[in-house]
C-alpha cells in the first residue's frame, strides 16, 4: 500500500509539472502555431446574473474573496473619487498580470458598481471544463471571451452593457508573461463607441510581483499592490474607436507613471508626450537613447517581480480615495 501511494505521489507530481491550478499547461512556444481553440462562448452564464446567484456571489465576495485577498496582500486603492459620478453601465479596462487583478478590482469598487459588474474571462481557460466555468461564472460573474477563431466576434459584452451591467475587461487578452504590458487590443474601445458608454482605465502595480503567472497563491509577506483608477473616458461626439483607444493607452501610461514621477510629474510628462505603456525596462544603447530590454531576457522578469517599496518615495500632495 505504501508503494502504491508513493507511486501515486510521484505520478501526481509528474502530471502537475508545468501546469497551473486549473491543471492547464501553457502551450510550448514551438506549438503556438498549432494551437487549437479550446472552449467556446457557448457556456450559458445567464443563470449567474439571476437574483439568487447575485446574492450568493455577494456572500462569497464579501465573506471570502475580499477578506482573503486583503489579508494576503496590502492593497492601496487610489482614484476612487473619479467614480463618484458614475452610475453605469461603464467599461473598466485594466492591465493584467496576475490572478489577483480581478479580486482587487471587484473588492475595491463601490458596491453600486461592483454589484452589477461582469468580468470578461478567456473562454479557452476559464470555460473549458464545466465545473470551472460554473465556479468562475458564480464568483466573478464572468462571461466567456473567445480569444481566437471564428467565435471571437460573437461576444456577450454588448448585450450585457445593454442590460445595464458594468464590464471589467483586460484588453491585453491574457495575463502578462513577464509582468510588463503587451499592446492592448482595440475591442473595448469599439464596444464603448458602439454602446456610447464611458471607459475607466485601471492600472494595477505590484500584482505580478505579489502573484506571478506560475503561482497559485500570493507570495508570502503581504506585498504591497496598487489599484489606481483613472478618470472616466467618455466617447466624444464623432470620436472613433481608434481615437478612444489612443486616449485609453495614454491614460494607462500616465497612471503607471504616477508611481515613478508623482501625480503632477506624470501629468507634465504626458503633456510633453513622453509617456508610453510600460512594455518593459529600458537600457541605454550605443547612441545613448534608451531601448527596450528584449523579450525573453531574464531582466524583464527580474524588474517586474521586484516588490513595490513599502511606501511611495514621492510625497503625495493630493491623496485620493481610501
Amino acid at each position: 500500500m505504501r508503494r502504491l501511494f508513493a507511486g501515486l505521489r510521484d505520478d501526481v507530481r509528474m502530471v502537475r509539472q508545468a501546469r497551473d491550478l486549473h491543471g492547464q499547461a501553457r502551450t510550448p512556444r514551438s506549438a503556438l502555431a498549432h494551437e487549437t481553440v479550446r472552449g467556446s462562448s457557448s457556456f450559458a452564464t445567464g443563470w449567474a446574473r439571476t437574483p439568487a446567484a447575485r446574492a450568493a456571489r455577494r456572500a462569497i465576495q464579501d465573506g471570502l474573496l475580499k477578506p482573503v485577498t486583503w489579508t494576503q496582500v496590502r492593497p492601496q486603492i487610489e482614484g476612487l473619487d473619479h467614480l463618484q459620478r458614475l452610475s453605469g453601465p461603464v467599461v473598466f479596462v485594466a492591465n493584467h498580470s496576475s490572478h489577483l487583478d480581478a479580486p482587487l478590482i471587484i473588492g475595491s469598487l463601490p458596491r453600486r458598481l461592483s454589484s452589477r459588474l461582469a468580468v470578461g474571462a478567456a473562454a479557452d481557460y476559464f470555460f473549458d471544463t464545466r465545473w470551472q466555468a460554473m465556479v468562475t461564472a458564480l464568483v466573478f460573474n464572468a462571461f466567456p471571451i473567445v480569444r481566437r477563431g471564428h467565435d471571437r466576434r460573437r461576444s456577450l459584452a454588448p448585450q450585457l452593457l445593454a442590460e445595464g451591467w458594468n464590464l471589467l475587461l483586460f484588453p491585453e487578452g491574457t495575463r502578462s508573461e513577464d509582468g510588463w504590458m503587451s499592446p492592448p487590443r482595440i475591442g473595448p474601445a469599439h464596444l464603448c463607441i458602439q454602446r456610447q458608454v464611458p471607459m475607466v482605465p485601471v492600472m494595477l502595480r505590484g500584482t505580478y510581483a505579489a502573484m506571478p503567472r506560475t503561482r497559485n497563491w500570493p507570495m508570502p509577506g503581504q506585498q504591497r499592490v496598487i489599484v489606481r483608477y483613472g478618470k472616466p473616458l467618455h466617447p466624444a461626439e464623432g470620436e472613433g474607436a481608434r481615437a478612444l483607444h489612443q486616449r485609453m493607452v495614454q491614460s494607462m501610461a500616465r497612471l503607471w507613471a504616477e508611481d515613478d514621477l508623482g501625480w503632477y510629474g506624470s501629468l507634465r510628462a504626458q503633456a510633453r508626450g513622453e509617456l508610453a505603456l510600460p512594455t518593459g525596462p529600458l537600457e541605454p544603447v550605443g547612441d545613448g537613447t534608451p531601448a527596450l530590454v528584449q523579450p525573453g531576457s531574464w531582466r524583464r522578469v527580474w524588474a517586474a517581480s521586484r516588490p513595490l517599496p513599502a511606501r511611495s518615495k514621492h510625497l503625495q500632495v493630493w491623496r485620493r480615495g481610501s
Partner: protein
Amino acid sequence: MSRPGFVLEVDERTPALLMHEGEGFRLERLPLGSRVIYPPESLPGLRDVDEEIRRALAAPLGRPPLTELLVPGMRLTIVFDDLSLPLPPMRTPDIRQRVIEHVLELAAANGVDDVELIAGNALHRRMTPAELKRTVGERVFRSFFPHHLRNHDAEDRPNLTEIGRTKHGELVEINRRAAESDLIVYVNITLTAMSGGPKSVSVGLASYRSLKHHHNVHTLRHSRSFNDPPNSAMHHSYDRMAALLAEHVNIFQIETTVNNNLFPKQMDFLNKREWEWNLKDQAAFLAVRRANELVPPARRRQLWHRNAAPYGITSVTAGAPEEVHPVSLRHVLRQQLTEVNGPSDIGIWGLPYICPYNVNSIMNPILVMSLGLGYFFNLYRGQPIVRPGGVAIFYHPVRNEFQSVHHPSYIDFFEEVLAETTDPVAIETKFEEQFATDPWYIHLYRNSYAYHGVHPLYMWYWGAHALEHLGDVIFVGGDRKATARMGFRSASSLADALEMARERVGGSPTITYHHTPPLAMADVR
C-alpha cells in the same frame, strides 16, 4: 479540421511527455531543447463507409466494375490481410468484413458458386477460428468456415504454384488456389507506407522459397527505409514479383486506410498532445496508470490486448493494384507524415505493448527488437532521425518471456543463436537454412498456431539497417540480461541512458523523441 503534424521543441512550458513502455506508460521530462515529433491529428473518418465501398467497387481504378468481373462458373478467391493488421486490432465490424460482405453480395447476385476465402498470413501463425470470425464477421464465417475459409499454408507443397522468376532471378511462388483462380480479390488495410500494393499477394500468399528473396539482410540493409517504397530494395523486389504476377493472375485490389484513432474514449489522453490534457485527461492518466500497476501481469496483458481501436476509415480504393496503391499511400502519408529538419545525435522511442506478431500474445525480446530497431526506426523518409553512429534509446521492460505456442523457434533463437552471435549476416549464413527447414517448426506452423521457424531470424534482419546505422542501443527499464543477450544495454532511467550515451555522442547531444503511437512517420530533410 485536423491539425498537421509538427516538431515540438521542449521548453520550460512543456509538461512531462507521455512515453509508452510495453504494457504501460509513463510521463518523462525531456531535456530542454529536445525535439518531439508529433503526427498529424487524427483525420476524420468517412461518414458512410458502406457507400464508399459500393462506390469503389462500382468505379474501380484501371479495372471494370467488380460486378462485371464476376460471372457464373468462375473461381473467385478472396484474400485478406491477417491479424497482423491493423494495430491495435480494429473495433468490430472490421473493415475487412464490411468489404468482403459487399464483394460476396455482388458474387451471389452474379451466380458465383466457387468462392474461397484465404487469410494472407504468409509465414505468420495461423489465425484461430475465433480470430477469423472476428475479422470476416459472423455471417461470412458461418457460410464458409472451415472448408472455404482458411489460412494460407506456406509449407503445403502440393498447394503452392511456381509462377516463374523475375529478371533478377527471384522465384515467385504463391498459393495454388489463388494462382488458379479467375479472379483474386485482395482486401487490404494499408496501415503504414510499407504494407499493401505489390506486397499483398506476392508476400501474403507466398512460400519461404519466394520470401527469402526480399526478407534477407542485404535487401533490408538497402531499404532506407522500408516505409519509403521508392527507396526500399525490399519494395523494388515486391514490384518485380507483382509485375510477374500481373502477367499470370487477375488481381482486383481493394485497399483501405485508417486514421490515428488508436485508443478508446476513456483513454483519450493517449491520443492527445500533453499540454492540451484537461483535468479529466490527467485524472484518467493517473487512474489508468495506477490501476495498470496494480493488476497482475497476465491480466494486464489480457486487458491491453482487449483494446480494440475505434479507427475511422479514411479511404476505400479498388481496382488494379498498381493504380490503387498510390492513392492509399497518399492517405497514409496525409495521416502520418511530419517534416523534420535533419537528424539528431540521439533518438528516443517509447515502445508500446503490441507489434504485428504478438496480437493476443506476448511481446518477447526478439519482437521488442524488431519493433524498435525495425518498425519504429524505419518510420522515416529521407534519412533516419538519428545520425549515423548516434544512439537509440527505447523504453520497454524487455522481459525474458515467450509464448511457447506462438513463438517456439523464437525461444531457440534467443537461447542458442543470440548466445553465439548477434550479427545478422552471420545468423543468416549459419542458421537460416536450419531454422527454415526444421521439420518440427514446420509441423507446428502447419498444425498448431506457431510462427514459421525462420520468422525470428526475419525479425532480426528487420533491425539490420538500424544495427548498422546506430552506434549504441539502450533500453530504459529493460531487463539487463535479456537486453545484454541481444547486444544492447539497459538503463534504469533516462538520465542514466543519456549518461551512457555520452561516450558516443558527447555531453550535450541533440535529442529527438519520436512520439508514437499514434503512428508518425518522419520526413527527415
